[in-house]
């Protein structure tokens, strides 16, 4: 019978003892940082892709549609490998390590973040576009009739309103993003999963260690759900919007009794 090593398990789920292992520390930090940076990239790229898709210029429309088509139609894992190994071998870009203060960002982390961000942009494009299209056309007409050029009207009138529609799905995207960063393990980027794999290589207790790893993701996504619920209820209160899902409903994906 398999003997479950509770000692190792507790050692690695208790942050105080787990963080004594520098691998776990840097892995967790990398997962959080990569998620944030890649999601930001995704939002920015998604915004441009959405505007491109709605552009009156056929060239912009084609570029945006090609981008969304390719990055949504091919596996992220493959995109990541093309970026890291492909660009590396062609010497188009070798992903040298970057040092930001005391923080060393490895090439694998850079490539992984880039792939996650570009891929996310293709998904965000649809979300942003749906948000913009949800705004009544009268808003753009009113802005134009006041002499606002397209860009100004977008920035000051349409996007602030679209943000209300975009933020809930954006929160879900970020939740996914934190889990998806684990794919970077295949290009040996030291994120959370890779860190636990490294620990496992030393101790060979995969059951205990991977369950422990999964719990870190669970903590991250749960914390985010709580933050998200706060953000959205704040958003709703200010504009008198309808009730957003409560925290329990969000975490367990069940309907709360009223």
């Amino acid at each position, binding site marked *: 019978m398999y003997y479950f090593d509770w000692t190792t398990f507790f050692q690695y789920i208790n942050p105080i003892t787990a963080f004594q292992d520098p691998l776990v520390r840097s892995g967790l930090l990398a997962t959080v940082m990569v998620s944030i940076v890649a999601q930001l990239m995704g939002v920015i790229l998604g915004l441009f892709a959405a505007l491109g898709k709605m552009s009156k210029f056929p060239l912009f429309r084609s570029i945006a549609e090609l981008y969304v088509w390719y990055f949504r139609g091919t596996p992220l894992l493959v995109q990541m490998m093309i970026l890291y190994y492909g660009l590396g071998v062609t010497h188009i870009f070798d992903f040298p390590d970057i040092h930001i203060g005391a923080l060393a960002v490895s090439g694998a982390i850079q490539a992984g973040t880039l792939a996650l961000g570009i891929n996310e942009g293709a998904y965000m494009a649809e979300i942003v576009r749906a948000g913009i299209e949800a705004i*009544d056309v*009268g*808003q753009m*007409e*009113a*802005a*134009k*009739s*006041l*002499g*606002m*050029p*397209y860009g*100004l009207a977008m920035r*000051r*009138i349409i996007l*602030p*309103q679209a943000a209300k529609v975009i933020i809930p799905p954006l929160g879900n995207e970020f939740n996914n993003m934190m889990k998806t960063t684990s794919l970077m393990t295949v290009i040996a980027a030291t994120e959370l999963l890779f860190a636990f794999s490294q620990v496992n290589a030393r101790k060979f207790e995969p059951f205990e260690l991977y369950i422990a790893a999964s719990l870190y993701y669970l903590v991250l996504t749960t914390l985010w759900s709580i933050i998200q619920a706060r953000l959205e209820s704040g958003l709703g209160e200010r*504009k*008198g919007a309808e009730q957003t899902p409560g925290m329990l409903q969000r975490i367990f994906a069940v309907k709360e009794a009223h």
Partner: protein
Amino acid sequence: MSDPLLDDSYTPDASTIVKAIKVNKYFGRLHVLNDITIEVCKNEVVVVIGPSGSGKSTFLRTINHLEKINSGRLYVNGHLIGYTLRNGRLHEESEKNIARQRAEIGMVFQRFNLFPHLTALENIIEAPLNVRQIPREQAEEEGMRLLDRVGLADKADKYPNQISGGQQQRVAIARALAMKPSLMLFDEPTSALDPEMIGEVLDVMKELAGEMTMIVVSHEMGFARAAADRILFMDEGRIIEDTTPEELFANPKEERTRAFLSKILH
């Protein structure tokens, strides 16, 4: 192809605000504007009536280039609106230049189209601040004066969904006036309002009449009688009658006009 009937030697004079010469527009095969030719002078109030689908709203929207035209010439303040002429053909102006032209033309919409994420005062000062680059303090001061003028100084900090339809439309009028336009366009400004709120909006518009050039698409005959210098009757994309309200109500020339008036005057 230049139209030999079009006189491109039109020289603007200061008293003409809008000049339309044989303006045509099609939606697919539908001829929505058919050789529209009119002139609106400074401080004139022109009311446009006509059955739905007659092209009156479309015509109004061509005046600030929210709708493109297919042929003809449409001048506002002596400038072709939305286009430049090259070899007798219309070429659409750049985004920036169209925006600059629109800044001189106020528009009030049927559904108000206030910006819901901004307060009444913020709605009013948005364009003066960001289009005209007026200092905030000055813009707010002028904005408050305009709110006061439409009787809503106490609603400055309210969001559109916190005030009534009539109040929203009055804020929308103030918002358009804040750009100090030389022409105001009203696209059925009272038809989305509950009956008891129509009066307050018309009162504001009546007060504006006389000091502002206005083109108003509306079936409010009381307003037309009290404030309009001219009344246009449109049907099937054409201007059928162009006369004074008194004349139109007393003896409409066309049978169509008579039939239409009998329907809306009960």
